[in-house]
């Protein structure tokens, strides 16, 4: 079976200054299979978000190859990458990034609409699956942080994507809410066989992952599966 995400010798360099070497990614290689739950673990500034953005086709690498869901991003045009995000990729952000002018339902339905589906029922079902059916008509500012992140998970899951990219999904939540959100996210992914790649600097996230990829200064190293949380 081909890998869901395949990254080969990926580099991302920003404008170089005399004092600073500004490479965010330095020859990253990784392979993620369908249905795997991966924690991309590293400190702030290690290049996690950059890697996620490149995998999502939101950013361009300086060099290297990325293939997502069997498609080489380098050969996909802007329209191809947009289409990939619409149908095959889901995104969960640290700061939730719900659209403030849309209700919880509309935020979820937005994903369906972009994927070309007009049936409203899956959006209600997705909200129900994260326990927010009764708050469908609330605006983001009327929801707690945990609830907002659950809406974001419903938004990512509703179109049944092959891959979900989550950037610090618990980074803005307290420990208990973070655990709940994490359980919900990994549980739903396992249920649907969705590949989940989570960028995190929280050891807690690593505990629920199938594999841990440690990211240090733009290089990804596979963490041995010892069952212990990384330090």
């Amino acid at each position, binding site marked *: 079976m081909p890998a869901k995400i395949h990254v080969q010798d990926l580099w991302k360099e920003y404008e170089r200054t005399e004092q600073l070497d500004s490479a965010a990614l330095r020859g990253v290689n990784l392979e993620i299979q369908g249905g795997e739950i991966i924690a991309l673990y590293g400190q702030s500034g290690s290049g996690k978000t950059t890697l996620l*953005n490149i995998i*999502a086709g*939101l*950013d361009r690498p300086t060099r290297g190859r990325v293939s997502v869901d069997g498609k080489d991003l380098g050969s996909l045009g*802007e*329209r191809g990458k*947009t*289409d*990939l*995000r*619409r*149908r095959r*990729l889901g*995104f969960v*952000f640290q*700061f939730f*990034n719900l*659209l*403030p*002018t*849309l209700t919880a339902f*509309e935020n979820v*339905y*937005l*994903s369906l*609409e*972009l*994927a070309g589906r007009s049936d409203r029922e899956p959006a209600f079902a997705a909200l129900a699956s994260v326990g927010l059916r009764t708050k469908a008509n609330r605006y*983001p*500012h009327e929801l707690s942080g945990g609830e907002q992140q659950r809406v974001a998970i419903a*938004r990512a899951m509703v179109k049944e994507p092959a891959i979900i990219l989550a950037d610090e999904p618990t980074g803005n939540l307290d420990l208990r809410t973070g655990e709940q959100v994490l359980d919900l996210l990994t549980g739903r992914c396992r249920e649907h066989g969705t590949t989940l790649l989570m960028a995190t600097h929280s050891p807690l996230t690593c505990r629920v992952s199938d594999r841990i990829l440690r990211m240090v200064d733009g290089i990804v190293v596979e963490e041995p599966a010892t069952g212990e949380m990384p330090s």
Partner: protein
Amino acid sequence: MSVVTKAFLRYLRRRRSLSLLQLLGIACGVAAAVGMALSARASLASFETAVEFIGGRATHSLERPAGPLAETVLSRIIADPAVLAFSPVIDRRILLATGETVRLLGIDPLLDRAVRPQLAHPGTPAASPAPERFAFLLEENTVLVDEQLAAQSRLHSGGFLETSRGRMRIVGTFPNASGEPLILMDISHSQRLFELGGMIDRVDLIVDDEAGFLARWKSGFRIQSGQQRRATLRDMLGAFRLNLQALSLLALFVGVFLVYNTAMFTVVSRMKDAGILRSLGAGRREIVAAFLSEILLFGACGGILGGLAGFLLSRFLSGLVAGTISNLYFFLRPAALEWDWSVLLVSVGLGCGASILGGIFPLVELVRADPVQAIRGRTAVRGAHGRAARAALAGAGVLAVSAALFWLARIHVYFGFAGSFALLIGVSLTTGLALVFCHPPLKRLLAFLAGLPGKVAAGNIRRNLGRSAVAVAAFMVAISMSIGLSSMIGSFRQSLIWWMGTQLRADLFVGKVGGAEVPESFYREMQTIPGLAGFDRYRNVQALYRGTTITLCAVDAAVLQKFTNFGWLAGGNENWEPVKNGTVIVSESFSRRFRLRAGDTVTLDGVDGPATLTITAIYYDYTSEHGVVMMDRSTYLRVFNDRTITTLGVFIDPGNPQRQALLEEVSERAIRRGLPVFTRDQLRGDILAVFDSTFAVTRSMQVLSIVVAFFGIAGALMTLFIERQREFGIYRALGFSSRQVAAMTLLEGLGMGMVSFLMSIGVGTALAWVLIRVINLRSFNWTIFFHPAWEPYAVAFAIAVLASLGAAAYPIWKVYKTYPQMQIREE
């Protein structure tokens, strides 16, 4: 509606105050443009109606090049095979006891019926009951009064009309669609009334063989078709209308800045949403559609509001425009314009056009935004300084284009207008850089005024260049226009005062241009009064020269040489010498319009055919933008055989001990004859009053531009306020009081107002120069002398301070209302 579009449009409700400001800004801009265009249209429509009503079925009119013609011409007309019908007319003005001057048409009711059947209406001579009909024909001083005038002056059939030429009995009323107050009199009675025995003013004709007719009457007569007459009159308004349109565009131009400002805010506030949407799979097209639907919705709603407001505004402006046209060109009473749905269509088009123009650059920024950066938030602030420098560079380029356009204005005044707009755009582009340079002194000033909040306010203005620069630009444009227009009007007024001092030097003026003429017998009567030093029998008549209506003036050259001191382009009062011997002098406007200099000749259609006269001097004049040809009365009589006197200037030696008594005697005798009399000061005062009323429209547009710009500053402050709510939370955490935050907002407004004012000093002065040396010179062909004055700058300063403080009022209210709840949080 797609959810993406919905997500954008909901911001409008969420930020109601800002939406309202944007809507009002667009509406005001559109209202100004629509109001001005509609009032011009109303004036033109009523002008067409008036010309058509008075002209009736007449295909042509025949008259002398200047003055009345002998009625013996009628026997030739009767014999002409091309003439199907004709009607001789006396067309004069008469002064009512109420002080109003009205038009009096002397007609032959039987002949006129074929030419003007609309006057053969119940109540009019041809259709009246027999006794009235006979009274109209047989009794001296019997008249028909138009219904509107009758109602307005409470006149009725059987009553009397008091005029400067005696009491007249009203034998009926008639409907008058022309709008101009009108009195009808039998032609033979009117000849006696105006001492025109055997003379008529013109003959209105219905002609079927135009070419043949023109060939037979080409010498010594001026023959115009109805269409030519309308075109001639319309051409007279050409420069006037162009200037009005340019003025109305100004408010819309300022409105575009406002739209740009709010559209830029829209982009900044939606940038993050756009980033999120891109990460969720929305394409650029969906985001562009959502943004466009938002700005087009604003454009459409603002357009509808502006259209309705413009329609109402046109009712007010029509009065001003018609008043100006009546003062400067010909009588016009604007008819109320009927509501037309196309007004809304045009208004929506203008609103959407302004919105797209204002939103195009922000839209490009939105489309080009990097989604990764966009998700992180306010990308627009980053790189704002670099952008300000680039914009200033582009501004320098636009200024260079503007200079080139001013140079090209010698070809057509359109280039001058385009250059003015380019000047404003060019300087507007430099506002960002100007704010950067102004930051250190502004910081010191605001810190001096309010301490720490002042420092922070100055910093905020500089940090949010994308926002503050556009607001400053909009405000600077409005204030500069205020300074430029006021300086131009002030300079024009001073030039006019100087001109009056050179030409209007008689001690008394009897009669009035555009009013009733002075009988020659009155002049002869004046000659019998001992002690009067001289008389100027001034004749002012409109004539055609190379298809343009110009003014012909006959004067007593020897008298003017002695008593006046004309402003000559070259030479002095010795210029009168050749005039006494048959040459002419022309106004600067005539010289520039027809490119004729001293030494050239001018050929005028005289009573005996074309007469070629030599121009020997050119003088400054502000009475006619189309040009004046002035000659001695003897030359005028030789060429035109017209003895009419429009006004009589009476000169008394300054040292004459009987001066006061003489003044009183002349006045009394004139009043006894029902002739208006003006002292020199009165006449000058009247001219200045007309001058001031002429610029009422300009002032209205000035005010509207400032109102639109006010919305710009208010919108910018509101935008900054909304954008920085999180920062306010930080200020709160640091211990800033509501009062300090309010002071900060107030000082931001004041700071922007100050920079706008400082920039407008230079730009306003430059604009004044452009208006005087380019626009006025090219539009009206006369030189206005630049008279610098401090008042326009003081007014601009007051406007800048008051408007910027006023614009801060709402954000300050919001600060007091919401500050205690502000938190340090993202949402």
